[in-house]
């Protein structure tokens, strides 16, 4: 008889867990209060950068390790999905205006201190910038290039994962508010559904059970900019208004993101929109003619140390605290969890996120 899993939360993590456990021969039930599209999830908002090295600016080494491991897994993951996903492996470019060069130097120093190997970052001058992003060469004469980074369209990914789940023998309960997540049981109203393992992938929805979990509000904008041609994520360093611009198909650019210590998921504020738009305009004046097609807001689920956690209990495993790194580290988390519940062994990367789980 196959093992059974009840997965609560169909964000990027819950969906990937469902696909993987199904492939391993498990009988999987997936629950989410949202629609199949998943517009309420943090994963619907996330910008989809897979940038383990740029993130060294503030993230701990362990996130980089999980990210580097996951990076190599993404192409295989995308091949397994029922639909194509916009995914590019073109690296990322970091620039700053001449007045803010110190910010660039600070990032450079921080990355060098923590880089696993020296070739992950390249100092670039005007000629190299012209090769990489010709339209930025006039404005920026120096920057940093991180060749081994990727980006994907998070919404494509959510859709493709959804379609894959639908085509497999997975029971997907949308529009289902889960009342409680317990050992071996998913409780919906008065009904208890029992499983060998329950996987709590509720993101911020798990706050009642994980009191240390907090939201870090992130706001971003979708711009349609026919006059702008950028092919890779561009980060602008600034003492206050650092932003990134992440390309999507068809001249659509995601400009983000704020990071505000708050659980508030209300619409974007004018101040934040002004900050994001002015900063984007200083990167490329072509954004002046862009149309603002959407704003998206959600809160990143973070523990006080901003590190992810896999917290196993009896017949219940909680995976949370993906913070600003959900896409970056999800493949690694999936492997660590599966190795634990399917093979009964401990993945080498589990150390630090499964051991040090006392909060």
């Amino acid at each position, binding site marked *: 008889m196959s093992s059974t899993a009840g997965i609560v939360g169909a964000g990027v993590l819950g969906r990937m867990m469902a696909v993987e456990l199904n492939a391993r021969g498990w009988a999987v039930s997936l629950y989410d209060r949202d629609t199949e599209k998943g517009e309420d999830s943090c994963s619907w908002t996330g910008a989809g950068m897979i940038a383990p090295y740029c993130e060294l600016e503030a993230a701990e080494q362990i996130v980089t390790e999980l990210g580097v491991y996951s990076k190599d897994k993404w192409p295989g993951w995308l091949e397994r999905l029922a639909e194509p996903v916009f995914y590019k492996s073109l690296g990322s470019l970091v620039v700053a205006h001449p007045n803010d060069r110190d910010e660039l130097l600070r990032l450079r120093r921080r990355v060098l201190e923590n880089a696993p190997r020296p070739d992950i970052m390249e100092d670039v001058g005007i000629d190299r910038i012209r090769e990489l992003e010709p339209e930025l060469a006039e404005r920026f004469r120096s920057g940093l290039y991180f060749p081994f980074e990727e980006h994907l369209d998070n919404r494509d990914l959510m859709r493709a994962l959804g379609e894959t789940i639908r085509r497999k023998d997975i029971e997907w309960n949308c529009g289902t508010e889960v009342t409680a997540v317990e050992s071996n049981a998913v409780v919906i109203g008065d009904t208890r559904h029992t499983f060998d393992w329950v996987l709590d992938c509720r993101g911020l929805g798990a706050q009642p059970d994980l009191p240390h*979990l907090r939201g870090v509000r992130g706001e971003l904008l979708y711009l349609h900019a026919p006059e702008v041609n950028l092919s890779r994520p561009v980060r602008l360093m600034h003492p206050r208004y650092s932003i990134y611009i992440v390309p999507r198909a068809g001249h659509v650019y995601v400009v983000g993101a704020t990071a505000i*210590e*708050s659980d*508030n998921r*209300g619409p974007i504020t004018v101040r934040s929109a002004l900050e994001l738009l002015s900063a984007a305009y200083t990167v490329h004046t072509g954004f002046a003619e862009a149309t603002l097609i959407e704003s998206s807001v959600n809160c990143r689920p973070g523990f*006080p140390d901003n590190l992810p956690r896999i917290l196993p209990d009896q017949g219940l495993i909680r995976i949370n605290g993906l913070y600003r790194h959900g896409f970056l580290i999800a493949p690694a988390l999936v492997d660590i969890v599966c190795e634990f519940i399917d093979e009964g062994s401990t993945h080498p990367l589990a150390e630090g996120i499964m051991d040090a789980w006392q909060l």
Partner: protein
Amino acid sequence: MGSALYPSPDVMRDAIEAAGAELVTVALRRQSPQQASGSRFWELIRELNVRVLPNTAGCRTVKEAVATAQMARELFETNWIKLEVIGDDYTLQPDTAALVEAADILIKEGFEVLPYTTEDLITAQKLIDAGCRVVMPWGSYIGSGRGLVNKFALQTLRARLPDATLIVDAGLGKPSEAAHAMELGFDAVLVNSAIALSADPPTMAEAFANAVEAGRAGYEAGLMSPRDMASPSTPTLGTPFWHAGT
């Protein structure tokens, strides 16, 4: 200490504890657009057992600053406010005229106002006349890490405002600069970026705390006045006396 820019709330807590800071500033506008209570971050700060000093960072007019201060009083349950009215967006230089006006309004409403200002003596005097007991001049631009750019003016402030509590706010980049501010007779320093953006914030916080102690002790013990050693007044040892004075 300030509460922005740390890699994580855990690191912030460790740094604040390492420094033994007694006042922690929180930016009302950035932290929570609509509500502060119930925010996990706010609870984290409350658990630190320090006095919270909400600020009006990001405000550009008297009206905005006053409204933000009123909101802060309600949300953080304190009548202390770090008053910032910004005149220039890039340098975050305070608009001192608006600052004095806002301070006057808030003090009449019962606030304990800690204004962020420049090193200008007249502005400081006006803030005190309005009822501020604490004045917080900058060392240099916020986040610049350039230290005490106009030491002479800061010294003048100390000499001319002996009864005010003076805190150097903004611009400190190194522990030695904090020590220097304390040697000048300042009562405290306010630090954020220099600690939060360092590679090891708790260690840097401790370094700043030690520097503050050292500078204060130096001030209390009475610093010797520097001497002009260019021309010896008496024969130096090892010089035959008949050469001296020739």
